[in-house]
């Protein structure tokens, strides 16, 4: 059983780490501000979500697991509003046609 759980954790955490890599690659390679923002907020949040899922089986108690889930929920809220705010400023800055 532990072997199965460990394999699951390795898989989820590993793919989460790859999403972080993808986010950074997008940040480095994408041509303009808005697509970079898109790469950052989507990929990194997916990565964090996968890591949280991977770590959940290792939570020592129900409340610890709930806290893990809360971190991810908070990340969703934070990323959604922060990206909106940043994108709004970016659009204001664009030279008007």
């Amino acid at each position: 059983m532990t072997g199965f759980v460990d394999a699951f954790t390795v898989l989820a955490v590993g793919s989460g780490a790859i999403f972080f890599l993808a986010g950074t690659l997008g940040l480095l390679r994408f041509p303009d501000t808005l697509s970079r923002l898109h790469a950052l907020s989507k990929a990194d949040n997916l990565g964090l979500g996968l890591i949280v899922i991977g770590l959940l089986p290792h939570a020592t108690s129900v409340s610890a697991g709930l806290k893990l889930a809360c971190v991810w929920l908070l990340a969703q809220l934070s990323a959604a509003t922060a990206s909106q705010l940043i994108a709004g400023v970016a659009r204001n800055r664009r030279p008007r046609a």
Partner: protein
Amino acid sequence: MPDFLTGAAVFILVVTGLGLFRVLRSQVAVERMMAVQLLGTGGAAVILLLGTATASDALTDVALLLMLLSAFSCAAFTLGQSSSATATERAEEKP
């Protein structure tokens, strides 16, 4: 297992650091604020991994706090931006 989790934490820290320097060196002011977003998410991931690797529950609280305050700092930054953006727009409209 702890070694794998710590390794993953190092990997994410390095990757986040690369993105961080790309963003901080950007000429566009708005892109710099992505640094906080980036480090909030990446930092939370690193701390959660370390917390499980060392079996210390209190680290989850640090991740929680980091996420809460990254949203807050982001809001603070965009405020300074938007007020100056409207100011420059007004200045542009004058002549």
